[in-house]
């Protein structure tokens, strides 16, 4: 029966630059391509956030050269309110889609999922290649928005209708920019669907001998579950974007109610509803949050074990349970983004219960992590520091979820900086910390060279303290009813808060600057770093049993590998306190 699995990947190593590095079928190259795209995107997004923060701190401050980016967006280098909103939209979309989805899931997933299950490549290398290039096209289309007529859209990354659906009359950037946004996101969905198909099929069908589902590393599990979520979530955003395009380009009114009057013009729409867009969007939007964070769960658990030198508390089972529970819950709670948006008050209560229940698997996961630090021989290399940072940041961000999960408190905090702080902590920063941890942990394998630990530690300390300086005060702003998505604070109750914004801005600039250390570290390592051994961290999973760093084209050099136990056989007494997955021996008892 197994001949049915005889998968595609008996392809020979390609020759020629194009086939090797550009239109490559090799999952490792594609993984690096995704990572590179995310890296480019994250720095663009970061610069955007710098500009936004500067504007929030000093609204009338000229930013040298800004008018080159947009002449009418920043006349005399001073950002206009609408251009602030455009930058905010671009920042949000870039970060959520092209960074938080691409790097931890598509990037590292592509590179390591096949290796960790002992496969030579993804199940469908061609789909894999398509998936990246479609995503890349989406990115290009999206970036075009900066250069079209009236600039990027200003409807926010959630593109709430009717602001996003009635076209140019509703505001600058809504003419062409928003259409580009919709097209780009639709393409992105297609790319991710192809990717998810590949991930799921590879995980289920291409596991090497002995690699039962229970023995898969937690990172693989996380990527697998993420793929399952993405498969259905992006399938929901895709039609939503198509309907949005229909509304914008063909005058349908799915999301536009009757009797809308924009600039004294009665618009010819009838019978649509903005709530429909919000439902369709958030039905994707909440799972998307988990697509961003769940790979972090897996990566952190994986790296933490290698650095605590002991298996995770509760073994892999509890963590897998948490991840799967989160996966299911992610589809039951999207309404908590809409408590005050005209949602039926009854469904608000209905949504708030599963939302609060999310805290249970999250708490259990945190307890497992913290519990496995107990009694460990914790190695404080950069990777493990970022793991610990992840846990701390995830706690902080998760806690504020309690407030937003309840309609009664959300009614005050809904559109305030409290929300900004919450999702930046729990989704953005936590996921980014996961990415950093993975980078410091896996780069030796991916580029074959070690990264500099000292620089890495500097990077960690500055980033860790920095993010707390940026986002912790945002909670306080939120409690003081500081409304988000304001490009300037002119209301009486907001003016006293501007100093806090100045502080946050400075913190953001410094933290952003600290990322340059990381960038330099990465590039230095890539070209001049010391050669990496095959298993620098004394870790056990399959990616460390590849014959070289980076692994050969078919990952294991034609050697057929067999797996004998799960990926976390640490904690033995003696010099070699771990057992590779490929090693029949069992871990020596202490």
């Amino acid at each position, binding site marked *: 029966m*197994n001949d049915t*699995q005889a998968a595609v990947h008996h392809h020979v190593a390609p020759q020629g630059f194009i086939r090797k590095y550009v239109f490559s079928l090799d999952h490792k190259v594609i993984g690096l391509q995704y990572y590179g795209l995310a890296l480019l995107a994250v720095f663009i997004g970061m610069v955007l956030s710098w500009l936004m923060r500067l504007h929030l701190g000093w609204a009338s401050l000229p930013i040298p050269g800004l008018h080159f980016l947009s002449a009418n967006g920043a006349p005399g280098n001073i950002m206009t309110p609408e251009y602030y909103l455009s930058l905010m939209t671009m920042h949000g979309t870039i970060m959520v889609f092209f960074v938080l989805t691409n790097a931890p899931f598509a990037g590292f997933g592509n590179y390591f999922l096949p290796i960790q299950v002992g496969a030579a490549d993804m199940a469908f290398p061609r789909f894999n290649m398509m998936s990246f290039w479609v995503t890349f096209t989406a990115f290009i289309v999206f970036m075009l928005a900066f250069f079209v007529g009236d600039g990027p859209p200003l409807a926010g990354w959630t593109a709430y209708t009717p602001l996003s659906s009635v076209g140019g009359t509703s505001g600058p950037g809504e003419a062409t920019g928003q259409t580009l946004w919709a097209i780009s996101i639709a393409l992105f969905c297609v790319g991710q*669907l192809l990717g998810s198909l590949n991930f799921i*099929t590879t995980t289920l069908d291409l596991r090497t001998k002995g690699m039962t589902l229970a023995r898969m590393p937690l990172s693989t599990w996380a990527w697998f579950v993420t793929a399952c979520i993405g498969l259905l979530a992006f*399938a929901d955003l895709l*039609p939503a974007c198509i309907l949005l395009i*229909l509304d914008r380009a063909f005058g*349908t009114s799915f999301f536009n109610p009757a009797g809308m009057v924009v600039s004294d013009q009665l618009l010819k729409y009838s019978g649509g509803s903005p709530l429909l867009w919000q439902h369709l969007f958030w039905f994707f939007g909440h799972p998307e949050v988990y697509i961003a964070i769940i790979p972090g769960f897996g990566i952190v658990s994986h790296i933490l074990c290698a650095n605590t030198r002991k298996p995770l508390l509760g073994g892999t089972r509890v963590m897998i349970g948490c991840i799967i529970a989160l996966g299911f819950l992610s589809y039951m709670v999207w309404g908590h983004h809409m408590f005050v948006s005209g949602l039926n008050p009854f469904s608000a209560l209905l949504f708030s219960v599963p939302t609060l229940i999310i805290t249970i698997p999250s708490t259990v996961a945190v307890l497992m992590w913290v519990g496995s630090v107990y009694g460990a021989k914790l190695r404080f290399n950069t990777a493990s520091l970022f793991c610990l940072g992840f846990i701390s940041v995830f706690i902080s961000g998760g806690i504020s979820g309690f407030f937003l999960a309840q309609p009664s408190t959300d009614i005050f905090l809904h559109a305030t900086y409290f929300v900004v702080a919450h999702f930046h902590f729990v989704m953005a920063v936590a996921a980014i910390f996961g990415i950093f941890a993975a980078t410091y942990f896996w780069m030796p394998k991916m580029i074959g060279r070690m990264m500099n630990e000292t620089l890495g530690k500097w990077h960690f300390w500055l980033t860790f303290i920095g993010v707390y300086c940026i986002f912790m005060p945002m909670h306080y702003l939120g409690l003081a009813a500081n409304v988000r998505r304001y490009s300037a604070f002119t209301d009486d109750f907001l003016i006293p808060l501007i100093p806090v914004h100045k502080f946050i801005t400075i913190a953001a600039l410094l933290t952003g600057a600290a990322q340059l250390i990381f960038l330099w570290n990465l590039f230095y390592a890539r070209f001049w770093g010391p050669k990496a051994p095959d298993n620098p961290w004394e870790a056990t999973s399959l990616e460390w049993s590849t014959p070289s760093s980076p692994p050969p084209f078919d990952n294991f050099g034609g050697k057929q590998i067999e797996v004998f136990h799960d990926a976390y056989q640490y904690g033995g007494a003696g010099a070699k306190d771990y057992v590779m997955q490929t090693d029949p021996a069992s871990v020596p008892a202490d």
Partner: protein
Amino acid sequence: MSETHAGTHAALMEASPFGIQSKKLAMWLFIASDAVTFGAVLFGYSFLRVGSLDWSYPFKFSPSIINAFIMTVILLTSSLTMLAGVFAAKAGNKARCLAWMGVTMLLGAIFAILHLREWFHMFDEGWGLFKNPLGGSADFGAGFFGITGLHLTHVVSGVIALAVVALGYNSGRLDKNHVETTSLYWHFVDFVWMFVFPIVYLMNAAR
């Protein structure tokens, strides 16, 4: 790739939990996600319909409903002929399989033609993506043309896919499994229509 390689490779792998080919599994997964896509559109359309105060019921029994019923029968029949093709392929009777696939494509084409014919009738009556000659909510047009358009796209791409697979199968580049996998997609197109027919046609019939 060579069977021998397949053999050796397989022996050294964990069994797939489903015991089916990777590409068949991938097709199933695609079908699941596509089901959600259609689901989302149908839910959206129903949402607007439930919320609408002036919905219009344009479909007369003749010709619309009759036409839609005929289309349903055609699509169901095409599924049957597709099955016949798969049976033939499994029995190793290539010529027979290709013939049945041909019939399936033909039926698919007829379905598309009938569909477009109906569309143009409606355009003549003044229907459109945002036009409603009966004066009610324009969302009927948007929903109807949106959903059936999405479905029609699936039908057409299905016909094309069948053609490609048939050629490949004929030239021996593809095997019976490809035929079976493609058949899954074709049946799914049929499956979707089983929801489109009642929800979009019958529920809008002038009663």
